[in-house]
């Protein structure tokens, strides 16, 4: 079992020693220890007793093993920043709070531990919201700490007062207004634990300035979820047995892996299961990397811009083993035609996802890794699916993703994605913006490892790519390249993050697939709005390579096929941030495509089929 999964204990079994798993160096406050009796273990330099609410907050982060925090300073959060000044936690000053949230989100995706972001009250907090909403949609572990005006001013429309818990309630897993200096550290510990345990998600603690400034010697409790928070580890053995029988007798089985597979560290177990029983594997977008896309059984991503063969497989299967997916509408298309012949075995840690969108014939509530292991034990013989597998292989060739790339025409984006993939290692991390380029990145990069695909799936937030690359860079190992495949429109939304990448000397390569278009919108206008390009054409974009240089990064530009390989190699070999402005075919479209609410099996391969 993975590192993360082993440290997940049901709340009633959680003890203070859980903290030890996360950070053996941290001192161990006991729940029942009176604060004034607290004494630091010998030889610990940073275990000085806390003196303020803010110090207690920072201590809670240290106890949780936090290494990085991303944020922007400001009046109401200053006490926290002051306490951070003396901490080992490395703070990365971002250019915009949205970037801080996306960086923390990506840090969480790559490392598996909650990323931490900080912002001041009012505009700082509201700027975080896009990133928090993104983490919420994708169940990414993240902790946001926001400054708030002093308690006595709350409700008075004070300067930079926003009802932050009010604003973020619909987009957080949980949030808290910290009302008490003695409890503020524990509020943060609890929020950290909630962000990572069970189904992960963003949590937020709103920190009024008087509370963080107040004197207190209350050490925070260890990061534990509150008693009212429960989740199930193991699925009901009877349903597991029934599901196993369904799998054994299936003729057209498919595994559908969702993002929960990666979050639950279940990729390995799912791979073994699929390979042992020779079951074709389809993934959702957040699950890219959970199963090696170069494997014979890999049908790759399904859904709106999924591969034709993945969509054929999910449409025609008779048994679907769906793990850690919420059956988002971009995956299912129209519900009526989604896997209409399939018995659905649905594994999810969140009972509310079971039968929310697609009815589960075999509801298996529990941790992905644990439940797939249960299934692996219970399934005694492989399904008889030779014909089905042959059919799937046939679909792979019938609906090949091969594209034409005539030398004398503008550079195809697919070609650029493949060239970047070629030039980097298997463990390279890819981040993206939102639009056509994101889909080409999904389709044409061959992902083989979990936690290497970092994108804004559920929210679809343009501007995600660069700040995510910053967070991913700090979470990834040094030998993992970090490549941001961005769109011109998306890059323009957050490119101020280049200042951070340059200042922190982060080795990131940004490839802007520049079509001088809000490309995805242009494609839809061509298909559904008679080609009326309302507000989707730039007609002019700045020179992104020159912009990069102005920031102090290295800029490159590609216009022709023969420049692709060399320029990519040069950009990757730069030690710090580099930006390649890749002028691609502005007319390139993303196919296959299932229109919203359409039938997955009827995906279009070209515009005239829509």
């Amino acid at each position, binding site marked *: 079992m993975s590192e993360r999964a082993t440290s997940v204990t049901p709340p009633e079994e959680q003890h203070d020693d859980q903290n030890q798993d996360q950070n053996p160096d941290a001192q161990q406050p006991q729940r029942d220890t009176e604060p004034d009796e607290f004494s630091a273990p010998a030889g610990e330099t940073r275990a000085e007793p806390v003196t303020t609410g803010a110090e207690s907050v920072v201590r809670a982060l240290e106890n949780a093993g936090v290494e990085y925090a991303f944020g922007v300073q400001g009046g109401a959060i200053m006490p926290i920043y002051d306490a951070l000044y003396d901490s080992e936690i490395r703070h990365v000053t971002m250019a915009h709070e949205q970037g801080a949230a996306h960086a923390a989100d990506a840090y969480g995706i790559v490392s598996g531990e909650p990323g931490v972001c900080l912002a001041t009250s009012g505009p700082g907090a509201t700027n975080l919201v896009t990133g928090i909403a993104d983490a919420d949609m994708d169940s990414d572990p993240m902790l946001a700490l926001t400054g708030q005006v002093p308690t006595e001013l709350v409700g008075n429309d004070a300067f930079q007062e926003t009802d932050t818990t009010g604003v973020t309630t619909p987009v957080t897993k949980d949030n808290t*207004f910290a009302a008490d200096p003695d409890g503020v550290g524990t509020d943060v510990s609890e929020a950290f634990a909630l962000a990572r345990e069970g189904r992960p998600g963003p949590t937020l603690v709103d920190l009024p300035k008087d509370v963080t400034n107040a004197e207190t010697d209350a050490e925070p409790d260890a990061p534990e979820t509150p008693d009212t928070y429960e989740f199930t580890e193991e699925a009901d053995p009877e349903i597991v047995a029934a599901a196993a029988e369904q799998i054994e007798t299936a003729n057209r089985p498919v595994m559908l892996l969702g993002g929960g597979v990666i979050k639950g560290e279940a990729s390995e177990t799912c791979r073994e299961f699929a390979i042992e029983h020779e079951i074709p594997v389809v993934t959702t977008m957040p699950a890219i990397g959970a199963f090696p896309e170069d494997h014979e059984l890999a049908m790759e991503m399904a859904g709106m811009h999924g591969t034709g063969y993945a969509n054929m497989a999910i449409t025609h299967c008779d048994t679907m083993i769906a793990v850690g997916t919420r059956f988002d509408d971009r995956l299912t298309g129209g519900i009526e035609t989604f896997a209409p012949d*399939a018995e659905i075995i649905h594994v999810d840690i969140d009972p509310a996802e079971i039968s929310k969108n697609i009815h589960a014939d075999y509801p298996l509530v529990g941790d992905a890794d644990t439940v797939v292991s249960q299934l692996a034990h219970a399934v005694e013989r492989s399904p008889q699916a030779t014909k089905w597998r042959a059919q799937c292989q046939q679909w792979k060739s019938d609906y090949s993703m091969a594209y034409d790339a005539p030398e004398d025409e503008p550079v195809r984006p697919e070609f650029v994605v493949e060239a970047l993939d070629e030039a980097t290692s298997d463990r390279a991390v890819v981040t993206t913006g939102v639009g056509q380029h994101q889909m080409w990145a999904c389709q044409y990069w061959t992902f083989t490892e979990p936690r290497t695909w970092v994108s804004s799936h559920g929210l679809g937030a343009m501007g995600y790519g660069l700040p995510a690359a910053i967070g991913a860079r700090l979470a990834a190992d040094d030998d993992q390249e970090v490549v941001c495949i961005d769109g011109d429109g998306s890059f323009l939304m957050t490119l101020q993050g280049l200042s951070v990448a340059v200042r922190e000397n982060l080795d990131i390569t940004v490839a802007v697939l520049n079509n001088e278009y809000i490309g995805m919108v242009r494609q839809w206008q061509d298909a559904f709005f008679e080609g009326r390009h309302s507000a989707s054409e730039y007609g002019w974009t700045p020179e992104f390579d020159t912009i990069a240089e102005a920031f102090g990064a290295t800029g490159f530009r590609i216009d022709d096929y023969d420049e692709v390989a060399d320029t990519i190699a040069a950009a990757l070999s730069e030690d710090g941030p580099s930006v390649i402005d890749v002028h691609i075919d502005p007319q390139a479209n993303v196919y296959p495509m299932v229109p919203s609410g359409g039938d997955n099996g009827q995906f279009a391969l070209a515009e005239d089929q829509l």
Partner: protein
Amino acid sequence: MTDGDRRRGLDGPAPDERPTPTGRRNEQGIRIDPAVEATHEPRRTVISTLVEHEPGVLSDVSGLFSRRQFNIESLTVGPTTDEDRARITLVVEEPDPGIDQIKKQLRKLVPVISVRELESDAMRRELALVKIDADEPAQVSAVADMYDGKTVDSCPETATIEITGSRQKIDAAIETFEQFGIREIDRTGTTALARGIQSTAAPASTTESTATEASQPQNQYAPADDD
């Protein structure tokens, strides 16, 4: 491909050349077996939740209903025998899958301790204050008696009657009062408890006994009695 064809896309059998499965799912994602096609009609039910008594929990609950577009008919909130806990009683109207979703989504809110759908025989009470024209005091009080109503305020022009009971009883009372002319009405939502020895919402770690729970409605109604 020629220049003009650059947008064309990928090769492969066109949609109408592909096999299509025969099955279908209904709106709730349930596979339809044409022989036994199950339709899920909305039904009204009472969901009782025990929550941590903390700021924001009521907005968490009501926000959930608006965000997920669940059909809610009434929501009442009040203290319990444990000062750290409050009870929120919800009357909802949804098809079965929707009711399941409501229960699961409520359970996910961190300050929610327990969620329970009450049996149809659960005790349910609403309270209404009805202010009516008092031109015919004798008849007003006759009708009030008919519904076990209590006159809580009167002046030469108006009488205000308090009625407690099931929603149907209150509806009926109001309808009858209409003949006198109703000036104003205020109604609570449904309060409800499970019958007999069973506890309405029994979280694992709470010590709330059924006996103390049973006395609760009186406590809650006490202020009204004093009017």
